[in-house]
């Protein structure tokens, strides 16, 4: 392959990678439905990408007794590493878990399904991650948000029809509209 063809191949490859990367994220942000989740911040640091706030949501820990496990899935069938869909329903300002299934059901009665992964199971309680646990902030800003530990924050999340979610905004509680 000569250098000219190779050069253009690299340009196309790089452009495609960046485009797909941005498209996948923008799709969820633009097409997704908006939900508001209650969370609490913890402030570690990502060596690769600078300051970020680690967010611990109420929906990260789910008691299987309090949600409806949609058939044919049974409570005991849920294992660590499983991909699950949590049905969320609005309760006041925030969304709370209502049901749990292994396939994404159709959205109805205002229930929004968010995709998660079971990371831990102890008895009836499961720990689930959704990929929205990190919020990157400008350098040094993490400390400011960390002051809200214990007070709680609210996060606006977009959830697309496939259940993928993305953080769109983070509200410090007092600033929430």
């Amino acid at each position, binding site marked *: 392959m000569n250098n000219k063809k190779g050069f253009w191949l690299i340009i196309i490859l*790089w452009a495609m990678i960046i485009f797909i990367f941005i498209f996948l994220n923008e799709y969820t942000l633009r097409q997704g439905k908006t939900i508001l989740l209650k969370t609490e911040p913890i402030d570690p640091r990502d060596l690769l990408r600078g300051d970020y706030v680690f967010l611990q949501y109420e929906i990260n820990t789910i008691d299987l007794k309090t949600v409806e496990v949609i058939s044919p899935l049974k409570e005991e069938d849920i294992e660590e*590493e499983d991909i699950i869909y949590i049905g969320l329903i609005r309760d006041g300002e925030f969304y709370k878990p209502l049901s749990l299934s292994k396939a994404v059901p159709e959205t109805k009665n205002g229930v929004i399904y968010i995709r998660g992964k079971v990371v831990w199971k102890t008895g009836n309680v499961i720990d689930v991650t959704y990929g929205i646990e990190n919020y990157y902030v400008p350098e040094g800003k993490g400390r400011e948000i960390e002051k809200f530990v214990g007070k709680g924050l609210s996060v606006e999340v977009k959830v697309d029809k496939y259940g993928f979610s993305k953080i769109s905004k983070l509200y410090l509680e007092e600033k929430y509209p």
Partner: protein
Amino acid sequence: MITGERHIFSYLSNLWFIWIIIGFIAFYFVFIRPILIKRGRINWFLKEVESLRKREIISDEQFLEICNLYLVKKRISDKRRTPIQVMQIIGCILMGVGFILFMASNWGKISDLIQIGLFVFLTFLTLSAGYYLSKDSNKTFISNSLIFISTILLGVTILLTGQTYHISMDSNWILSNWILLLIWAGSIIPVYIIFRLNTVYYLASLLFFIMQFYLPFYTHANFLLCPFIYPAIVFLLLFPLSKGAPAEKNANSVALILSLAFFRYTPGEIFLALIIIAGFLVYFLYEKKEKYLIFSSISALLFSLKLFRIGNLIYYDGLFGFKLEIILIISAIVFLILFILAYRKKSSTSLAVNMAGFLTFFIAFINNFNLILSLFLSVFLYLVSILHRNWKEYFSKIYKVYSFILALISLYFLSFANSMVEVEKFEANFLVYFYVLLGCCLFLFAFNLAKKKFSKEAKYEIPLLILFTFTGLALVYLFKFKLLNVILINLSLLSFSLSLIFYGYEETNLLLYNFGVGIFTLFIVTQYFNYFWSMLNRSLFFMIGGLFLLLCGFFLERKRSLLIKRKKGEQ
């Protein structure tokens, strides 16, 4: 097979800093030293060529031709950079500084997509500039630099995009740090293929190496995939790409070994090690280079150290349906293959490393660091070393060194009276291993004797051998006569150190002499504390001990001076 007891080797594998030191040493020998040597030689050579040019023995063209031959980009001293070039460089720097200042002061005000767009633009601009400048053979340096910078900017763009969209760094999610690094490293590989820039290759290698630390290693579900990603990348992508560039392969080999040393307590760890060992072996058989065999042996040693720490085997027992016996058989096969290859290639380095790995394996196999068995093992290794006497010098020495070290460790720890445990207290298998080892020793002794393998050194070594064997036998069969055992062990240790001193003196070998003195001092001090601490008045204890050591030191120093004089005389 397992006890909860921890022994010296379990601590050894817990000392993570040892790996760092090994890493640094390996890094120095693999990268720094060759570069320094090569650079030193080239600089000396270039000085010579330059002086030839100045004396007009060779022309400017010939000078440049020679430089090109050694891949050195050299300018004739009178062709310095023109003022225009200097202006261009200053202009580029000023533009860069201005751009950074602009970004720093306005970064918060710029929307996310524009921020990413700016970096995308900058990445492509740098790559294009590098490409167009590469057409001009005089601007190779600047074009290469620009292309390299573009590969870094691509990474910055990818990481910035990840940050902008708050992509989770939780490795449970597919789109996390490791995948960002994988995309980055994978995207710059074509740049290396097309422009053949070594810097890009090293950057990709580094990124792949860092990537594996972010891999979701700790989960059973990912076991089948994740641990093998990095070795697969190295063996199937980075190695074939670096054809003809040994330094690049060496760098990745060291990185692989380091990754093996750092990954612990993961389900796939044992299989990861086997994959790495097998990968190196395949390259050894394919390229017929000894270094791959050595890398394979080092991987096997690390594998052995991790796997055969006492207590660790319980963790692997039954993991993924593998019984402990199967793991031991696999390990034995690995070592067998490595030993056979070390012999076929006559690689003494590989043999030395294999021996360390095998001893760890042996200790795990006999269930504990049994001092009596290791004493017999040292006798066995000595006889093996005699077997190699006329075959290959280093092989014989390696076995002998291991034999000495094992004998020293066994005897030293046995010399503490309370370390002598009654044989009944050993595990049921003890006597089986003991008889097998004893049988092997007797057979080898008879064989060596029949083949007349013992040489002049044997006049010191044979009595020691008999003394050690007799001590070992007394420990097993006459364990009730404690005093006899104490005397025999101390006598063995004392004879060991004294024969080293005498042999070192006779052969004018300062190393052996000093080693013998070291063991002797250790022996005296330990035994003095061991037996006289409770018997003597404290002040008397230290005074007598100090005086004895001083006298010994005086005598040995006189002998050492004589030895040095003799050595000088011989030279």
